[in-house]
């Protein structure tokens, strides 16, 4: 907690010196959002320190469902596992899945968008029709089908799949950005100097298109986390006993009437983190929007 505050304060001091940084923190929800994120990232990294029990450890299975108390901060679940400890380790899994899947999605989306926007013509048509098809299939269906087709899916495959079904929107965004950038003088100049397509895209186009990618990335992590939670809730996501927040909700909800705490806290955790991501994403959008430069 203290550590998280310190991190946010330090960031704030550093970032304040730049104009976008000031705009970022002018956003009323940016500070709290960043704090929530820093908090969960901190406990995820320091999980062994802040968790009193290992995440799988079943303390006393003859007496499960302890209400929250000093000994068990958030109570224990129907398997007599400490909810707080699982929440902390679950932060690693859930945030990790969100971040990695988003990285995959952003990479693929950026690559496809850049290629389509830069080369235009048939490359663009083919890729964008592909994106149309991808957007037409609801993601959860695609994921469910994939999970059903290949039995016992490994965690990394699941993460990859979540990422690979999430790049369509990003690619459109990047394509639009690249389309407008490639007509600008500095890109034209680079091309005239004989730079290859790869070099132009990486050195000149993408850095200037970074803002929307970062913003959509920040917002996207939240989507990825919600998707993971939904899949795990249906029993088709992260395999037991790995503690993901979605898994924790699924494990506890049958006993909601007896022990509300074991599904409520992980649900709150997801909501808080996604909310923080949204807040930070919004603030970033405002901060990085070049149109606001003049204001």
């Amino acid at each position, binding site marked *: 907690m203290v550590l998280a505050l310190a991190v946010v304060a330090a960031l704030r001091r550093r970032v304040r010196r730049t104009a976008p940084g000031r705009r970022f923190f002018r956003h009323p929800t940016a500070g709290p959002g960043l704090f929530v994120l820093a908090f969960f990232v901190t406990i995820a990294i320091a999980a062994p320190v802040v968790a009193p029990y290992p995440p799988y450890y079943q303390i006393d299975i003859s007496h499960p469902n302890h209400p929250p108390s000093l000994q068990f901060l958030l109570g224990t679940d129907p398997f007599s596992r400490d909810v707080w400890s699982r929440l902390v380790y679950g932060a690693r899994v859930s945030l990790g899945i969100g971040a990695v899947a988003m990285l995959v999605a952003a990479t693929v989306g950026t690559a496809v968008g850049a290629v389509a926007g830069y080369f235009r013509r048939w490359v663009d048509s083919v890729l964008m*029709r592909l994106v149309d098809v991808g*957007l037409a*299939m609801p993601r959860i*269906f695609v994921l*469910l*089908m994939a999970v059903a087709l*290949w039995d016992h899916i490994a965690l990394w495959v699941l993460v990859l799949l979540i990422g690979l079904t999430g790049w369509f*929107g990003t690619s459109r965004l990047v394509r639009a950005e690249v389309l407008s950038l490639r007509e600008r003088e500095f890109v034209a100049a680079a091309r005239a100097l004989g730079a290859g397509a790869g070099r132009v895209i990486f050195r000149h186009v993408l850095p200037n298109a970074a803002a929307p990618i970062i913003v959509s990335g920040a917002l996207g992590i939240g989507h990825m986390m919600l998707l993971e939670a939904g899949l795990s*809730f249906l029993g088709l996501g992260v395999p037991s006993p790995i503690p993901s927040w979605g898994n924790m909700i699924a494990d506890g909800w049958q006993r909601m009437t007896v022990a509300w705490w074991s599904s409520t806290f992980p649900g709150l955790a997801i909501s808080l983190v*996604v909310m923080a991501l949204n807040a930070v994403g919004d603030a970033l959008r405002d901060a990085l929007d070049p149109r606001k430069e003049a204001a």
Partner: protein
Amino acid sequence: MAAWLVRRLVASIAIVFAVVTITFFVVHLAHGTPCGSQDRPLPPEVCQQLCRRFGCDKPLLVQYGMYLARLGHGDLGESIGLHRPIADALAEAIPNTFILALAALLIDFALGLALGIYQAVRAGRFGDVAVGNVALLINSMPVFWLGLVLLLVFAQWLHWFPAGGITDPVLCPRIESPYCVLDFLWHLTLPALTLGLVGAASTARYQRAAMLEVVRQDYVRTARAKGLRERRVLLVHALRNALLPIITLFGLAFPFLFTGAVLIETVFAWPGMGRLAVSAILQRDYPVVTGAALLTSAMVVLGNLIADALYAVADPRIRVRAGEGGGGGGGRD
């Protein structure tokens, strides 16, 4: 306008066609014959008979052709787990999903627009901030979790609403009296509210932003300069123009409603497409999964098409851009 519409229609059909093709080949490559999978082998006698019907001894392309031909006749095949034709099962489930989605959409837009306008009018003040933060929180919740919480509070603790299902099986085995319509609506409330609330939260955000955007534009300044009262400026001039983005939102809402429905139908035991698909997936009943995916995609594409058409009607400037852009976008899920 007509030509544009035809082009969009053709594009939409092409997209659905592509979805059909992809699912057909993916499922077939992974699981060959209609005799069930390795996991669910059907008895050899049954298999032979099915094979004759589906032509699994023929090359894959011929099978694909036959599949398309059957699809043209509305024949989606037999379900392995449900012991019945898939088209029948889907025909039973679709209206339920549709009604749920429609009710959710209604709540989504009614509540979302109202809140968005309220926020814009009170921009920067306490009401705006409070509503904004609550909306942000709801928009960030896992939709199934919100459903669980509502179920726990309103069905199991307060007993205000039923804990699931679609009608009371004793009093209303069929919906044929005013009472049963009420009973149906009573069952519909919680699931529709869950989906609608999450939707409304983002609708409100869009609406607020759109209205504030319009406020900065010239004609609003002119209106203001003419000495009109602020409230009137907002509600009459700004609102009219800020309704445009809502149409886009309508297109976006479709995929969200269907993906959300998958989870919500499971939570509330609502016998719709989502629940059918989920149970088919747990049963590894691939023909049903394929059928459900196909129909859902078709509906998403249709939703986008409607949104584009509305957009084009509302704002002729858009037509060209929308025409080249293809379908709308996902994003909310």
